[in-house]
């Protein structure tokens, strides 16, 4: 177990060192979840730029923001927000959906 703790704290150290250069400001975009729908369901973002997407969940139940095209997956708790970093994306369209309510919660990100 001691070896485990040591390797764990070493990993933490390595991780915290890599975190240092990532403080630059990125364009922010906001999406809301309301009644298991995304608003807006279509979001235009700049291509080849890393963006900060903030998802506000206005429902009382949790949702999972998910996109295979964007390689992103994150639980957004009810009445909370979640921060998701995306890109840089090549120009194109990237569908996303709410995994917990995929029949209604659908949206698309357009990078241009």
């Amino acid at each position, binding site marked *: 177990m001691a*070896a*485990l703790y040591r*390797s*764990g704290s070493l*990993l*933490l150290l390595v*991780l915290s060192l*890599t*975190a240092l250069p*990532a403080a630059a400001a990125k364009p922010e975009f906001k999406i809301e979840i309301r009644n298991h729908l995304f608003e807006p369901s279509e979001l235009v973002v700049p291509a080849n730029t*890393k963006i900060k997407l*903030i998802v506000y969940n206005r429902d009382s*139940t*949790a949702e*999972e923001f998910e996109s*295979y*095209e964007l*390689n*992103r997956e*994150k*639980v*957004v*708790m*009810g009445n*909370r*927000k*979640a*921060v*998701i*970093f995306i*890109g*840089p994306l*090549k120009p194109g369209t990237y569908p996303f959906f709410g*995994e*917990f*309510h*995929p*029949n209604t919660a659908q949206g698309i990100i357009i990078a241009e």
Partner: protein
Amino acid sequence: MLLTSVIIVLREVLEAALIISVLLALSRIAGIRLNWVRWAIGLGVLGSVIYASNTAIVSDWFDGVGQEVINALLQISVYVCLVIFAVYFAATHKADDANKQRLQALMTVVVSLAIVREGSEIFLYLSGFVGDMTQFTPILTGGLVGAGIGISAGALVYYLLLNLKRDIIPYLSTVLLASVAAGMAGQAALLLIQADWLPSQQALWDSSQWLPEDSVSGQLLYALIGYEASPTPVQAAAYFGGFLLLLGLVALSRYRRKSHADG
């Protein structure tokens, strides 16, 4: 809604079921009692309820990327424990009781941590429908179907492994463990990219046209070898580095055991 819950629960259960079945098969051939798995599942379920009920708090850590960081830490811990387990398993020839206990402890940690990460999502999903019986019943039914399929797949792997020739099982199991472990390392890298703790890059390749991640085979391969259709260089490096590191360390420990036995 029924189908959604089948898929969500199946996705989460499949990965844990595969790890459990490989570790159970290895326990059988090493003469280790299988009772550790009850502890592991119990601890994992308890941990996932605790984690699920604290997800809102965890989410706010590290400027809103707490979920990614904690999940990555869980994945890295599973990876490290799998490496220690595989190396230790390869190094112990005739396992005595003390060795068996250590191996059991390692497997318990691996399985319970793997369940915490996957299980918490199931609880969060189900919790959204509690109190609405018209929806909750079909969702729970779907969830049980999904869990049943996942557990059956695990049982299939377990019996397939045990029906192989005895001397092949450790080699194949090690490769399977290495694939699962590499998937954990790749996932951890992806989560830290999503948290902006690791650099995000253009994808190395995109095989989503040939084998979409959301297809049945894509999902199976995701659970088995951590398949990603469009990984970035950092992610691929974590995956392949993690794979080779585990196999290399196991080979080294086998070699040292052999030369020790010969000399």
